[in-house]
């Protein structure tokens, strides 16, 4: 019992109370997301009626911008915070439901290509971020967190690694802030670069899935380009997410060998604990769709449910991004993250470009 922390008894929060607590925030997500959808429909029509030249702005961008405006001006009152935090839940439910729009053959074909690209991306990003961390003389565990965050899957990977390598809370806050800030920037830069380079939906979707770190931002960056690019970005990002356990396990073993983290006992159990279960859900729904468990109308209904779930996610991405809070975390880790992200974005773009030449996309 020596290694078990004993704390005073805390009254557990009743599930019903926890459910009630999230309602205001979920309603806020729905309101912001739906306002984004209404703006997409009405602003374009209004501009056209008045003969204005106005770009067609998708609901994805409206929802994010509205969320950012609220978060960075009036802020999010305490009442709404736990509900706004559910955006991750909607993201994962949306990804599982999106599986109905993929046939298993497509997943195997695209997943095979993306798996090779993901492996190259992860190895290259980990090596580059580690080198950068050493150059900037960051703390080794902070460097590990930034490397895992940029190479694998953003915030989830940082949280999983933090526990496994026993990193400081401060280091993980730094890394999460850097990854989130850079993810927010990617939302606005990736589609612009993609259009400037005339990337196909497939090439852009691959790039967004490989180059944007956090799953919510990768999904949004893909959807901002096109529906097809959004689907592919989710598939590639999910392939990256599936790698999380292996990378975290490798780092856990490394830090344990240095006597700075607990040794990993059962490795298979460790991998299962870290494996993102929504990836399995996504695959299972895809198997069901492939074997016609759902008819055409039902697949359409599931796709729309997935869109509604993503709508809440995109609103959440804007609402939880507060640039003032991020600034407080300091400049050096952010600079390392920024240099690393730009390099990784360039590297992954070159990978996708090379693959598109080989496969004729």
């Amino acid at each position, binding site marked *: *019992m020596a290694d*078990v*922390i*004993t*704390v*005073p*008894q*805390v*009254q*557990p929060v009743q599930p019903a109370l926890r459910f009630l607590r999230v309602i205001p925030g979920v309603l806020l997500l729905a309101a912001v997301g739906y306002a984004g959808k209404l703006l997409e429909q009405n602003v374009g029509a209004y501009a056209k009626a008045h003969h204005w030249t106005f770009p067609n702005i998708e609901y994805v961008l409206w929802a994010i911008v509205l969320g950012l405006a609220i978060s960075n001006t009036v802020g999010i009152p305490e009442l709404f915070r736990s509900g706004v935090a559910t955006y*991750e*839940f*909607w*993201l*994962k*439910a*949306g990804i*599982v*439901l999106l599986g*109905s729009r993929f046939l298993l053959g497509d997943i195997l074909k695209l997943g095979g290509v993306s798996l090779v690209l993901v492996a190259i991306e992860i190895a290259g990003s980990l090596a580059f971020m580690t080198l950068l961390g050493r150059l900037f003389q960051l703390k080794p565990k902070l460097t590990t967190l930034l490397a895992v965050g940029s190479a694998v899957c953003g915030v989830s990977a940082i*949280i*999983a690694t*933090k*526990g496994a390598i026993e990193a400081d809370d401060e280091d993980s806050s730094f890394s999460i802030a850097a990854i989130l800030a850079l993810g927010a920037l990617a939302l606005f830069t990736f589609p612009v670069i993609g259009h400037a380079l005339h990337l196909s939906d497939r090439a852009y979707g691959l790039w967004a899935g490989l180059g944007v770190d956090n799953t919510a931002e990768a999904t949004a960056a893909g959807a901002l380009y096109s529906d097809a690019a959004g689907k592919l970005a989710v598939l590639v990002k999910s392939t990256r997410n599936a790698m999380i356990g292996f990378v975290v396990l490798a780092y856990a073993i490394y830090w344990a060998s240095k006597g700075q983290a607990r040794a990993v006992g059962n490795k298979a159990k460790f991998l299962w*604990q870290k494996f*993102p*279960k*929504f990836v*399995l*859900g996504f695959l*299972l*729904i895809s198997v*069901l769709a492939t074997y016609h*468990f*759902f008819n055409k*109308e*039902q697949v*359409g*209904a*599931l796709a*729309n*449910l997935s*869109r*509604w779930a993503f709508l809440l996610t995109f609103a959440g991405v804007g609402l939880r991004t507060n640039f003032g809070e991020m600034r407080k975390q300091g400049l050096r880790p952010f600079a390392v993250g920024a240099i690393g992200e730009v390099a990784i974005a360039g590297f992954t773009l070159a990978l996708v470009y090379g693959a598109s030449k080989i496969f004729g996309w």
Partner: protein
Amino acid sequence: MSAEVAGGKSQSRWKLSLDTWAVLVAFLLALLVRTGVFKHIPW
């Protein structure tokens, strides 16, 4: 990810991760669509 805490019986044995909840809810929705409870979902 989560620290082991002893201090009573407040930790539920059936505590599921966010991922697992998301998968369960998505499958429940898929089942409701499949059984015709939700016939048409507008967008």
